[in-house]
């Protein structure tokens, strides 16, 4: 327990220190990576810990983002309450999706989540009058203020991203050590057995979907707040694939894995985009290689070889 606490608090401390020394370009990247890693960690609750593969997490990200964005621009809420509306929308959305989608299992579950996500994307396009469709809309700098802090300022943005990241990281660390988290892992390992031991499997799965969707929605809302843009592209298929990729690469079912995967992938795409426009090719190749040769991802390998205690 002490080892893992040291590791995760150490990571947060390291990121805190980087704020002061990282060059401006990487400083901006890191803020983005921390928000996206929160998205991936949310995804990991379902995929890594409960064994539910969703192909539609873009919908939670987008619902959080639009819940925040629309309530700020259309209803004129200030950014704090708007952020709350974003999280609440994601919570309601994940509850509905969970209630419906969990009636299916396996391949059907994946396709149902994909379809729901596609429905959300088309809904955003259909109400283009309010959502501005593909084009999206900008959240003005004057609205992105909280407690007298300007969230569009690079330093404040970094700390806000770090705050979200730390909360999610420690929250998930706590979750996987808690009895509920243990039951989720038991469901992943052997659902029938968990059922036989008297656990309410369905209720735990639903809880996992709601937690996962809400965290992803919070990341979406935060992305909109910190980077000032809300757009339909965030609800499209690639944004459902990215968290899967990040989690697989970093190591599914590890607390720190999603961050490692996001960091790696971000810089890999960054590097490859200097060579070619077709950067999604890198995504494809890595996905294939991962499924073939490294099922457990980077942190999974670390756990197997060196650190059995890694949560």
């Amino acid at each position, binding site marked *: 327990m002490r080892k893992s606490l040291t590791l995760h608090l150490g990571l947060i401390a390291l990121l805190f220190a980087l704020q002061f020394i990282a060059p401006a370009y990487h400083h901006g990247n890191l803020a983005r990576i921390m928000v996206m890693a929160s998205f991936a960690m949310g995804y990991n609750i379902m995929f890594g810990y409960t064994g539910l*593969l969703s192909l539609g997490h873009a919908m939670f990200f987008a619902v959080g983002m639009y819940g925040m964005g629309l309530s700020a621009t259309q209803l004129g809420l200030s950014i704090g309450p708007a952020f709350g509306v974003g999280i609440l929308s994601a919570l309601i959305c994940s509850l509905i999706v969970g209630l419906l989608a969990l009636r299916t299992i396996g*391949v059907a579950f994946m396709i149902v989540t994909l*379809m729901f996500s*596609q429905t959300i994307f088309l*809904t955003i396009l259909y109400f283009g009058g309010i959502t501005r469709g593909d084009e999206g809309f900008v959240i003005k700098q004057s609205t992105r203020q909280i407690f007298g802090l300007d969230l569009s300022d690079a330093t404040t943005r970094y700390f806000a991203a770090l705050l979200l990241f730390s909360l999610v990281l420690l929250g998930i660390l706590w979750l996987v050590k808690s009895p509920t988290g243990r039951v989720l892992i038991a469901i992943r390992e052997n659902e029938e057995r968990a059922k036989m031991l008297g656990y309410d499997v369905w209720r735990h799965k639903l809880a996992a979907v709601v937690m996962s969707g809400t965290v992803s929605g919070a990341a979406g809302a935060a992305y909109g707040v910190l980077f000032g843009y809300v757009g339909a592209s965030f609800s499209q298929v690639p944004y459902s694939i990215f968290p899967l990729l990040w989690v697989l690469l970093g190591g599914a079912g590890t607390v720190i894995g999603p961050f490692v995967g996001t960091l790696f992938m971000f810089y890999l795409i960054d590097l490859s985009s200097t060579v070619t426009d077709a950067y999604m090719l890198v995504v*494809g190749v890595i996905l*294939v290689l991962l*499924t*073939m040769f490294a*099922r457990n991802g980077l942190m999974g390998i670390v756990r197997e070889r060196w650190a059995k205690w890694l949560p």
Partner: protein
Amino acid sequence: MEFGPHLMLAMLEGLVQASVLTLTALGLSLVFGVMRVVNVAHGEFYMLGAVLAWWITSLLGGSALIEFTAALILAPLLVGLLAGLADWLILRRVDYDPERTIVATIGLLYIIQQVTLMTYGPDARPVAPPFNTRLALPWFEFGENGFALYWPWGLSTTSYKLFVILAAILTLIGVWLLMAKTKIGLILRATQLDSETAQAFGIPVERIYALVFGMGAALAALGAVLVVPIQQAHYLMGADPLLLSFIVVIIGGLGSLRGTVVAAILIGMSDGIISVFFTPTLAKMLATLLVAMVLVYRPQGLFGAKPA
């Protein structure tokens, strides 16, 4: 145009759509039925068929008819070989595990799509139809002189569109004969029913899987070659057929070939008709939601038998 002729036109367009969709969805259904895996890269094999058709027709000189016939035979063959190879190199190595196969085929999707973008480029390119005679169609009315036929302006189709429908029907019959009447069909059905027992009886299951995966992709490519003189070849054209094929395969019942054909005609037709009269976004939105609900409440599909 009046409502009657307009509806007739919409139905004809819908039938062409349905023909292509039937072939594409049949490929997906075949792969799912026999191998029990979902091929997310299916839409990209479709796209590859269209792009290869453009390539073949532009490389070959000669009349449009010869060029197109060459594309019709070569493009599905090449795509089928490529898919078989992908199966042998990738899917076989992940033991056809359903989840890992989905992730691997998502990877394959981006690889095919992006390599096409890098080589073929972002442009949409047309392929000349081998023949394209405009056929005016009659409509009837009950006027003062009783029943009469007339030719309303705009109500027409082309010989090529009729050929697409015919080609789809012939392919369907071909697939049915293959599955029902030949030895290879028998082996495929045996593998579908119980792959372990089939293996015990000396059927080389892995090679059968590669064959089926290749056949599935070839069917998608064939659909794309047929459609490319009507639409154009573009590196992103695989997304819609993939989604529609998913819808068809789900509505028809996962793995049921007969259900797939019925559902493809139903959905292709209604998609064609609805997008003529309503906005396509709303139509797609409702269709997607409806299908998700079918999966949730009737996972065996509308036509599939209830699992025992």
